[in-house]
């Protein structure tokens, strides 16, 4: 049963545009899907390697800007009068370049920041995100600064000679996001179930032991950072071409916090965790916006974050898995008992 769960979820998700015609809810699904992709990429670092990267929004934003700029074209003057002129390219190349550029920054940041661990790693990653935000705000010639990049073209799919198809409609964009989400899921699950993934978990559990048995810690961490940044960049590109406008606020710390909340609520270090957490936090605003202002909604998020860490530190998915495991072992076990066992297990 558990083997088929991802397929069932995929089919169920694919059927959504067929019966759901409310454009507002469909819009919520699309943006939620984009943030689930970003949260999945964060989970690769946070859940599997145990490195809390709080600058993750940098890769999301870099992907968004890179994709938008490749599709829009730009004309900037660098130092010493060197001008770089770029003619607009097709949008799908923009999305690919978004992934490539974000992955490149993932490599650079990974190489540099994995020299430090724990709190210092967190501070370096946040600092990186803030520097990138300030560059996006101040390099007006390239990014238009606070005026935002506007009129970002929609994604066009097609083959030469067959015809082209603009993904204008929400239905078609939903399928694009779902496809990228499924692809990211496959990439991450292949990675974490490979030799590299086991190495990552080993170094999360006990880094000095992992080093002593010959695991190239920095190499695997950088690999995780590159893949994670690339996927976050893909999410950013999808975000830019969906909203068609992108401004430096995309780098705000609150977006990273949103991703972190999604991951820890769903369950870090599980493949399904970011999806479950993402759906919960993607849809809270949909239901709460009629009676909660944005400030109260954020206060709710903050309290929820504290509460989760206090009562369910492993997240929802591991708790459910434990509950099922306990029930399979002993069908008579009441629910209360298994949750108590879970609390005792918690670190």
């Amino acid at each position, binding site marked *: 049963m558990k083997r088929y769960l991802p397929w069932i979820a995929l089919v169920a998700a694919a059927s959504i545009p067929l019966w759901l015609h409310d454009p507002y809810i469909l819009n919520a699904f699309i943006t939620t899907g984009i943030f689930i992709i970003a949260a999945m990429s964060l989970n690769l670092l946070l859940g599997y390697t145990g490195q*809390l990267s709080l600058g993750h929004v940098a890769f999301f934003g870099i992907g968004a800007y890179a994709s938008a700029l490749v599709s829009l074209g730009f004309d900037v003057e660098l130092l010493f009068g060197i001008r770089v002129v770029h003619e607009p390219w097709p949008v799908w190349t923009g999305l690919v370049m978004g992934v490539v550029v974000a992955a490149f920054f993932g490599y650079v940041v990974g190489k*540099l*920041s994995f*020299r*430090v661990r*724990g*709190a*210092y790693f*967190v*501070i*370096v990653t*946040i*600092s*990186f995100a*803030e*520097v990138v935000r*300030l*560059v996006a*705000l*101040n390099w007006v010639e390239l990014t238009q600064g606070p005026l935002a990049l506007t009129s970002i073209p929609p994604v066009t799919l097609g083959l030469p000679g067959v015809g082209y198809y603009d993904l204008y409609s929400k239905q078609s964009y939903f399928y694009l996001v779902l496809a990228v989400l499924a692809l990211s899921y496959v990439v991450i699950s292949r990675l974490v179930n490979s030799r590299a993934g086991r190495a990552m978990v080993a170094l999360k559990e006990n880094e000095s032991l992992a080093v002593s048995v010959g695991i190239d810690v920095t190499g695997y961490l950088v690999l995780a950072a590159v893949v994670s940044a690339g996927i976050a960049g893909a999410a950013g590109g999808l975000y830019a071409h969906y909203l068609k406008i992108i401004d430096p606020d995309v780098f705000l*710390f*609150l977006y990273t*916090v949103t991703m*972190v909340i999604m991951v*820890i609520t769903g369950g870090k270090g599980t493949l399904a965790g970011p999806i479950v957490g993402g759906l919960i936090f993607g849809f809270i605003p949909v239901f709460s916006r009629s009676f909660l*202002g*944005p*400030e*109260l909604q*954020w*206060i709710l*998020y*903050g*309290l*929820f*974050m*504290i509460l989760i*860490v*206090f009562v369910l*530190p492993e997240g929802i998915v591991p708790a459910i898995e434990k509950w099922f495991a306990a029930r399979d072992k002993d069908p008579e076990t009441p629910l209360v008992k298994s949750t108590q066992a879970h609390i005792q297990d918690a*670190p």
Partner: protein
Amino acid sequence: MTEFLQHIVNMLILGSTYALLGIGLTLIFGIMRVVNFAHGELYSFGAYFVYFAAILLGFNFFVSILIAIVAGCLLGALIEFVLLRPMRGADIDTTMLIMIGAMIVMQNGEQYIWGGVAKSVNTPFPQAPLVIGSVSVSWLSVFVFCASLALIAASYLLINKTKLGKAMRATFQDRDTASLMGVNIQMIYMATFALGSALAAAAGALLGPVYVISPQMGNLASLKAFAIVILGGLGSIGGATIGGFMLAFAEEMGAGYISSGYRDAMGFLIIIAVLLFKPTGLFARAERIG
């Protein structure tokens, strides 16, 4: 030259309040190993409390600042008691997530209570600035500088000359041994967090009236405080003081001679550079407090 001197004067005033922020954080991070993301919110809490006491309740300006510092101290003790005490022994990432949650609640609470419009506080100081040669400085800034130095000196004496300070230093060096020697660790942690929060609130209370008070003012303050701590080395009051002035110097010079848009980037570039090339901070001989 005139411009340079003016930058130096600005640097001294900004740096003295940065030092307060940094000392508060270096104590909390050094002794408790808690990455306090709410530090910047305690800073803006201090600023709002001055506004609340001086403008809405009508207290004297100087009394309002004292009230704000005491309120910051109490709020810090409360946060420690409610959020951190039950999580004693949890790893650093767990408490970090809790403090991020606290930061979000506090910042949006400020936005909800006070609204997004920036507030300003009237001060009893004369409008005309103090002019020394070609450099002019407002009387308020002179007061902020002197008050900050007094608070820095007071925290130095508290840590190095009192029994409480001795217990804090012992806890910093070795928590378990300190506990065996009869130090009440729970009390030390609460005192540390309350003291650090009071210093952050003091920085906000002093700097808030110089600029304007807005819910976003705490946003960068936590990270700047970290830049200071990283510069100065963990647990060092002297290092945090020098680090505060150095960050202010880098910001003033960056804003004055490179681009004002990148003023806030200076702190982050310093963090990245120091952590990558000299991770123990510029002044740390070894990790010690005092």
